[in-house]
């Protein structure tokens, strides 16, 4: 029942934070839209007044791609660079977005106003950025170590002549392990950010320490909540992307409708993520309330370094 109450609390907080979510959607859309608009005009100028697009009605056509090769290679190179910049920019912007969301989701922010979102994002930007960066690096390191170790074991097995299919089994096994560890790292990141906001701290390393402490203090409950939310998010994402990517509207109106539906679904996707933040915030607040009522000190890890 505790699981359900936290999920419910997270969902309610998420819905109340709709202004922040819409701002996030709009900014992400503008960023991607700039790249997409330049890609579209590039394609338009390459195609010109040709009717070759008739070959693109069903699916991407390799003959057309080849015929457009010179212009297309320039376009792909510039879109790829733009895409990399977009990833970088999103990573940085996400520090602002998640800082703002955790602020608006917390009890401190009872009115759930837009200023709450913006001030939370601005005042916690650097600390949240450091938390995001460190947890991302931990994830990459953990995934690389697990994958690397398993690959090494397999390649050395059978006297350097592994059984057929052993490597693909190792890859699948390492993906499963990383997938099981993913909720833990997400919990650490979410608890750390929620703790940072809840305690008006600017100490990212202390926050990460608190994140680990909180994750393992309420291990089973937190893990179950996170697993449920990840499954819902992933299921939603897979379903939406597969359906939308597979759809083939053949008229301008159909394409516009697809655009509208896709954006509504993406906003729902952002609500689901905020639901995760809200549920973890609820878990943290309950723990801290319980600790205070029992006269215990808050679960804070010793700061490793606060010179950030």
């Amino acid at each position, binding site marked *: 029942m505790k699981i359900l109450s936290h999920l419910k609390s997270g969902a309610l907080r998420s819905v109340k934070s709709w202004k922040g979510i819409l701002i996030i959607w709009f900014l*992400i859309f503008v960023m991607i839209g700039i790249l997409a608009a330049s890609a579209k005009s590039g394609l338009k100028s390459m195609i010109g007044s*040709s*009717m070759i697009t008739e070959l693109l009605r069903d699916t991407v056509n390799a003959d057309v791609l080849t*015929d457009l090769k010179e212009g297309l290679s320039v376009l792909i190179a510039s879109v790829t660079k733009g895409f990399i910049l977009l990833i970088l920019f999103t990573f940085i912007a996400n520090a602002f977005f998640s800082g703002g969301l955790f602020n608006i989701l917390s009890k401190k922010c009872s009115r759930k106003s837009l200023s709450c979102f913006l001030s939370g994002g601005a005042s916690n930007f650097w600390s949240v950025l450091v938390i995001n960066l460190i947890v991302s690096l931990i994830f990459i390191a953990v995934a690389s170590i697990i994958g690397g170790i398993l690959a090494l074991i397999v390649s050395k097995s059978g006297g350097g002549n592994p059984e057929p299919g052993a490597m693909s089994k190792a890859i699948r096994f390492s993906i499963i392990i990383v997938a099981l560890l993913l909720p833990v790292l997400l919990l650490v990141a979410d608890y750390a950010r929620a703790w940072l906001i809840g305690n008006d701290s600017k100490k990212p390393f202390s926050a990460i320490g608190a994140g680990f402490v909180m994750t393992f203090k309420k291990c089973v409950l937190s893990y179950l909540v996170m697993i449920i939310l990840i499954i819902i998010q992933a299921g939603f994402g897979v379903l939406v*992307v597969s359906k939308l990517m597979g759809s083939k509207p053949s008229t*301008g109106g159909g394409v516009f409708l697809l655009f509208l539906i896709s954006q509504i679904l993406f906003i729902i996707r952002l609500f689901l993520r905020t639901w995760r933040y809200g549920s973890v915030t609820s878990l943290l607040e309950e723990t801290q309330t319980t600790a205070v009522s029992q006269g215990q000190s808050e679960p804070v890890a010793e700061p490793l370094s606060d010179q950030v």
Partner: protein
Amino acid sequence: MLISEENKGDGKNKTLIYRAEDICDFAWTAWPGYDVYNDEWRHVKITLLIPHIRKEQVERQFRAVKNALEYLSENVGPFPWPHLTFVDPPTKRAFAGGMEYTTIFTSTSADRMPESLHLPEMVTVHEFGHGYFMGILASNEFEEPWLDEGVNSFWEERIMDHYWGENSGIIDHPLFKMSDKSMSRISYLLSLGRQVTTNREYSWNYPHGTYSMMSYNKAATILYTLMGIIGEDTMNEIFREYYRQWAFRHPSGKDFIAVVNEVVKKVHGDKYGPDMNWFFDQTLYGTGLVDYRVSRYTNSKIRDFKGIISEADSQRFVPSVTKDDSVYKSVVELDRLGEITLPLDVMIHFNNGDTIMETWDGRERFKDFNYSGTSQIDWVKIDPEYKLRMDVNFTNNSKTDKTDMVPVRRYINKFIIFTQYFLNIISL
């Protein structure tokens, strides 16, 4: 077939003697990891040796080889041998894959090959095809590789696109489809050495790593282009005749072209000239490119003039404004940008729904078609069915004022969706 089997008595060695009629090459394989599967197609007993881990691909492999048997038997000639063995080598010995010997060949695959990727089927069809183009029609692969690999690739592409989908012979995924013939054309078009040599050269003289492109891809694209000109039925008849005349002999390129000339003359008379040498001289034995372009089209309103008014030092025309002045003079301007000249169709569509199909011998550097009437040209297409697959640029084959940008908008929309979700996933 197995003639005798003699055990040496030591429990480790034995002697097997096989006999096969009319074969020009042989091979053998042994590996304890193979699973052995047997099947039949009409008179042919088929054996497949495949690693256990790929047992889910057995059905795919048998389907591929049976499709190839059926298609080549119908369109070229009967498969003469009662046995056929094919092998899918394990990953650690993948280099043994994709090799042909008469009545035995090796395919290529990978563990857990996705259903949407028809690579194993393609290799199986190709290597089986060598039973015809090298096995039965035993041309010299080193002197004229196009007659072996090129002709065989042409048939492989036809088989793949016939059985696995006209646009999905090699890849059949909802997000991306690709025909086998497109893969060949792409390899030819993207090759930097596509104009450095001709198929008149022996294969050991091909420069700049062009062997694969010249032997497989360009030759197959040339044959597709020939089929686009003379038609599929004539093309099949050429190969049936080639089989009838040259089965179990050693034909050369000139022998094949002689068959082409004979059959085309028989079917089409002098429609394409006294012979088809003009085609092979330009494409197979030349280095030129095919590129035709719709330069532009215009629709000009025709007006009568009542007369000329002279005013001081200037003159002006006085147009006749009547109900009948909405007559248009429409002009289609076509260019030949490449060196190769081929006959082609030109489709002109008018805004009243009328469509005119013109033919052009393609020899001049430019060609105009003139029309006058009450309707205007909507669009123009050269080679509307994309049959001249040697054309290096399909994009300039058509022109319209109303380009359908819906597919582009759809792809851009999907790019936005993909990017949004990707960025959302990688953000914590």
